[in-house]
């Protein structure tokens, strides 16, 4: 279980709940914007799926801003007391190699076109890392937006920059396709009921019925396509000299 920053500790809850205290926990919030009306839905779906896959994505929720607008709030994982820098890809790979395959597959699965070095944070001293910022995936990130983007993603890897956006900062690092094995198993086993629930929750924050339906279909379909998509894009992983697993 990861640790997160608190803003205040106490007072105690009161009678009947021994030892419990009220806590203020720091979080970072972001709203939908004019240029990207899918921030909340993207972030909610991506975070729920990522955490199900056991990636270290901070817990999150939705809060109301001062003017009543909804904000996606992600817990502040800044434990050291100081913000950590963007990752250096080779250093990150060397330290967290066993997780890189899953991370690449997760980003490919959600069509993330924005996994640059600033969207990962690593504390090498504690051997911890965090994955965050999923506002440019699924329904937005490259043009066209909305359900048309889902259509354009169908057979694309996306993390190779094939649709535009940023090439994944770790795609040139992975050296062994066997690191994909566990991640593919996990993605392929995502339950349909789970995807349905997650998309249903996200839809409350700005999706039309059509977009909701398209998103659910996309996620169900892409689960089973991922293996073939990776096989079709082997050239996008230049450091894998020999493919043994795929």
């Amino acid at each position, binding site marked *: 279980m990861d640790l997160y920053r608190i803003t205040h500790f106490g007072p105690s809850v009161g009678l009947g709940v021994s030892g419990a205290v009220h806590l203020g926990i720091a979080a970072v919030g972001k709203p939908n914007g004019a240029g990207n009306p899918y921030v909340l839905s993207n972030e909610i779906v991506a975070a729920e799926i990522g955490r199900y896959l056991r990636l270290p994505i901070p817990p999150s929720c939705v809060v109301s801003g001062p003017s009543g607008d909804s904000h996606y709030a992600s817990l502040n994982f800044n434990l*050291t*007391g*100081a*913000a*950590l*820098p963007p990752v250096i890809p080779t*250093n990150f790979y060397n330290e967290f190699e066993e997780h890189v395959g899953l991370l690449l597959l997760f980003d490919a699965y959600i069509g993330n076109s924005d996994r640059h070095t600033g969207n990962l944070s*690593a504390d*090498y*001293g504690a051997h911890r890392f965090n994955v965050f910022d999923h506002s440019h995936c699924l329904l937005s990130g490259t043009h066209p937006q909305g359900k048309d983007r889902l259509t354009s993603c169908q057979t694309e890897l996306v993390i190779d920059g094939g649709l535009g956006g940023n090439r994944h900062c770790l795609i040139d690092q992975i050296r062994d396709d066997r690191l994909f094995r566990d991640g593919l198993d996990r993605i392929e086993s995502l339950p349909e009921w789970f995807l349905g629930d997650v998309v249903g929750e996200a839809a409350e924050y700005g999706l039309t019925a059509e977009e909701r339906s398209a998103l659910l279909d996309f996620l169900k379909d892409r689960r089973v396509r991922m293996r073939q998509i990776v096989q079709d894009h082997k050239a996008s992983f230049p450091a894998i000299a020999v493919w043994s697993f795929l």
Partner: protein
Amino acid sequence: MTVTYFVAKYADDPLRMEPKNIGVIAIVDGHFYARFIGESEDDSSLDLRKVRGHVRHSGAYKQWIEYWRYLLAGTQSNETIVNGLQATPRLNYFISESSTMAIDAPAEPREILEYLFHLLVSAFPEQKNEELSLSQRCDEILGQYRLRQNPHFIESPRVPCLLSNTRTEHVQPSYGYVNGAEIYFQRVPLIESRPESSAKEVHNAAWIFERLRSDRQERQTRALVKLTAAAHFPNLLDVLSSVSSSVIDVDNQTQVHEEFSRFVAAH
């Protein structure tokens, strides 16, 4: 020459935003040079023990220095590198906007970097470096040749020099020996980390010597330097050689003996 530089800053509390300078990045001749607190002058190796007291978490500090050096070592254009440095979110660690500084004396990039580092980040090294050691060495020479007991040898003499028919100016070299001939000595401290200051010392010596010899051409002038320090300033050394009768390396026993032993004999 004009140098563009950036200051690396650390703010313990991003809300209060009271940053302190932790490093400097300079662009000299189109190349990046950087130094951060805790790094050695020679090989940029980082000693985190020197960082304690400056930042709260030395592990995070180390990662930031590694990241900035990673950006600086990139092969992209300078503009791209600068944009990458300044894209750092303004939380605890960030890079300032660029500033420029005019450097009078020609200097090696490392010298400029060290000067900026001491000017903006840490204090200048204490005077127990070349400046004091030049004075100490000169004191040793005075003692060795018993020059303070020599009635012809004067410390900091005030020498009148005629500027025009009606105006006289007094110059004050470090030492003078007057016994028929007039020989004047000027200590010229040259400090690697302070190129501007070093240039001023040379120009001051040049002015003193020029005044002395304009007034009386037969006067002899000697610049006293530590040649190990002067090696970092070949151009300044050339200037000194052109305005002095001779340049004496106070660490060269042969030169020192050749110059000062005759005062003892004369006395």
